[in-house]
């Protein structure tokens, strides 16, 4: 063991956390699924809880403001060395995701985990 605590795989910015709380207050619990490629892909999709059927092999990355955040297991394999940071951007969502408030959409940025963090996550090569 090194000195690192295992870091969160997904975290929310304060703007994102606020948007989620408002969404939940307005419509009830929500869930996130990280999308893959094409068009409006590679974006976090936000649904009402239960709208998107979670499969047996999907990976729960963590929770953001109390809401679950999932990713496809194959995609997880190529993303697992990075942390996902959920944020909010201007403009309505272009696809099937719920908006992050009026004229806002959820976005992600990513950060590569340090060697120590990877070790704490049990992912060092």
């Amino acid at each position, binding site marked *: 063991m090194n000195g690192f605590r295992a870091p969160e795989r997904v975290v929310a910015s304060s703007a994102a956390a606020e948007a989620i709380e408002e969404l939940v207050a307005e419509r009830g619990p929500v869930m996130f699924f990280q*999308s893959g*490629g*094409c*068009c409006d892909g590679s974006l976090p999709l936000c649904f009402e809880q239960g709208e998107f059927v979670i499969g047996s092999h999907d990976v729960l990355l963590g929770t953001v403001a109390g809401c679950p955040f999932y990713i496809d297991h194959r995609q997880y394999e*190529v993303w697992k060395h990075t942390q996902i940071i959920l944020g909010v951007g201007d403009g309505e*969502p272009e*696809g099937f995701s719920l908006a992050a408030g009026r004229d806002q959409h959820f976005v992600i940025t990513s950060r590569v985990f340090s060697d120590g963090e990877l070790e704490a996550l049990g992912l060092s090569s």
Partner: protein
Amino acid sequence: MTDTLTKPTEESGREDGSATGAFVAPGQPGSLVSLKPRYENFIGGTWVAPVKGEYMKDISPVTGKAFCEVARSTKEDVELALDAAHRARQAWAETSLTDRAAVLNKIADVIEANLQMLAVAESWENGKPVRETLAADIPLAVDHFRYFAGATRSLEGRSTEIDKDTVAYHFHEPLGVVGQIIPFNFPLLMAAWKIAPALAAGNCTVVKPASPTPWSILKLAELLEDVVPAGVLNVITGPGAEIGKALATSPRIAKIGFTGETTTGRLIMQYAAENLIPSTVELGGKSPNIFFADVMNADDEFLDKAIEGLVLYAFNKGEVCTCPSRALVAESIYDKFMERCLERIKKITQGNPLDPSTMIGPQVSTQQLEKITSYVDIGLQEGAECLIGGKRVQLDGEFADGYYFAPTVLKGHNKMRVFQEEIFGPVLAVTTFKDEAEALEIANDTLYGLGAGVWTRDGNLAYRMGRAIQAGRVWTNCYHLYPAGAAFGGYKISGVGRENHQMMLEHYSQTKNLLVSYSTKPLGFF
């Protein structure tokens, strides 16, 4: 666009009145494209205001400014469109193949007669260079309708003699009313890919264009008011979460066709499962484009073609599900070959997409722009080397707020996220391979399997690679050709079903089997 020296002419639609200058933007004096401040839904052959009376702004990525409004439809509008489609369903299904094909040919003729107008509209709304819409998007849409006009007439049912007195007849019957969701990257061509086979097979359709590009297809609908029988083709605009969902979950559709990203593809299939209806989903890709060492055996026309083949990652500013966004270059030629390619990339002219000399326009939206930026950032964090580009481009004047991103090349390795995820922008990830086995291993080390490119002067090698790459289409010594008649669709998580081919008619038909006995003898069981 008002400060041009020469007055634009109605005939040319160009800013300088010449036959080669930049086209005048839609709605401006002298433009080929008329523009209303507001567009309603196209339902039942006429224009219908959204039930709740709400509209949303349509922004041109060229300037970053709104240029018109379109309906922000709700599920009530989806029902109206489905009502119209169901009213038209039976008559259209019973229309003879001769007459159905004639309608498709007429659609093609109308598009062709308005080619420049539609090319300018498409360019303005999506940001794709008009040189591409004039030469590819619109002519391909024309050909697509003609192809399916012919394909549906040449598609024959089959009959089988089961035994001397028993015959199985197989007829193609329309599904009925279908829902079709169109992506933003080729708004008119992808609409043609979906509408043509659906109509050819005798179905009526409700089409939902992508949220960033709802307008050019409405311009097409204006042209088709008197061409397509009322209710056979309906177009409704609005947010995916509202009307995309209402359409895809409706128990009143017999099939859902979708092009877009993978998670939404899953959602669409889930919705289809709720109603036990079929779906066709064309999803993402991360296509390898493989350059073997022998491409540099001579400095000739073929090498020139191969260099262009690599640079084609910038086609339609990289917003293509088959974008050749992973270049795999033989290690032995890497330095020399990339030097030539980077020279070519430096010459890409970026700017107003309505100028026919422009090679790359703006990304379709700010959301795409921010995504591309975040990918370049993660690529650099992972240790990729930026060989060219890498940032947003700030243009002057009226284009200052447009969504332009510099053609970018990142060198790295295939485990990096920029090699594994579709960026949907003009960002090429390049790496090297030692031999054929390694090239194949890297090519197939991806979640996706939509497209691939193989470049070599060795036909046997090209064949081996083409068969071994797990992708729905392997372009061999070419790339980004989309002729009607060449089946298109994904392996792996890149989708289910094929488009662009006569087999698409099967996706939009039921099979009716009549099992007929010509014997008078009882079975003898009872």
